[in-house]
């Protein structure tokens, strides 16, 4: 958690890297849930028939 450099200035590179990491994790989770919701729908359709 060192968004400020040794002289206290804002470290934009660290900020962007952190944003990118979080965005990647969020994207992976969202993809996983899209797949899961698709499978739930298919499973429910299967149960209904």
């Amino acid at each position, binding site marked *: *958690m060192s*968004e*400020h450099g040794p*002289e*206290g*200035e*804002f470290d934009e590179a*660290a*900020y962007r890297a*952190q*944003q990118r*990491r*979080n965005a990647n*994790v*969020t994207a992976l989770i969202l993809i996983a849930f899209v797949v*899961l*919701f698709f*499978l*739930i729908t*298919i*499973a*429910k359709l*299967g*149960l209904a028939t």
Partner: protein
Amino acid sequence: MAQSQASLAPALPADWRDLFALTKPRVMSLVVFTGLCGMLAAPGPVHPVLGFSAILAIALGAGASGALNQWYEADIDALMKRTAGRPLPAGRLDRQTALHFGVGLAVFSLLLMYMAANWLATAILAVSILFYVFVYTIWLKPRTPQNIVIGGAAGAFPPLIGWAAVTGDIGLLAVMMFLLTFLWTPPHFWALALFVQSDYAKAGIPMMPVVAGERSTRRQVLFYSLVMAAGAIAPWWPLGLTGAIYGVTAAVMSAIFCALAVPVARRTPLAGDGMKPERQLFAFSLLYLFILYAAVVIDRWMLG
């Protein structure tokens, strides 16, 4: 000037690992296991995808409870050595992010449970989250040394949820599984409280050893261990809900539990003696719950 620029600069976004830590992953593993056992012990088939989704919903619900608990207790956590390193007291995360994360996770877990299972499982999951946050965390924990006794219900709901997700109702065996965790919670937590009581005292939490004293707590550990043992054996005898596999396992494990609780109840610890009996009881209590829940499932699958 440089200092004022630094204070105006945006803070780093929350790290996903800190958000994950908010969900209390170790507690979540126990909740997932007991929920899974409730599901596997229930009569009737379950579609693997729907079963997995229901368990995931239980895990997310437990994570939401943990996050909201840490949001509310951030000030208290900062005072205790055991919890001072958590993301909020350590300053790696702000409280508003934790609140939004917890509420969002709770709502999402309920939606997922409703999609995967039924309204009853969803309702019990909602009750368990609300009970943990409002009844245990906000109401009981800062007010009474009985916080663990009543609050234990919050952690006991998962087998009921797992069962309800499969059957759409609540069976007597599911209620007995709920009762097992409910009665197990006091001796488990008081064994822990005995060796971290200075932490609780510092934070002003009225845990039993802090309020009623060590002697009384030690007696109550043994008392609740005996009540828990009776509750653990009851599904086999006299209720006849399980077979001998569970019955013998419950009897043997409960006997060991009570045997470990006896020295805890009888002894007067010396300064710096390491509290070995209390630590042994705490460690065994975790194994006890895992083995008994596994025994219910094995019993149901092998003996029907």
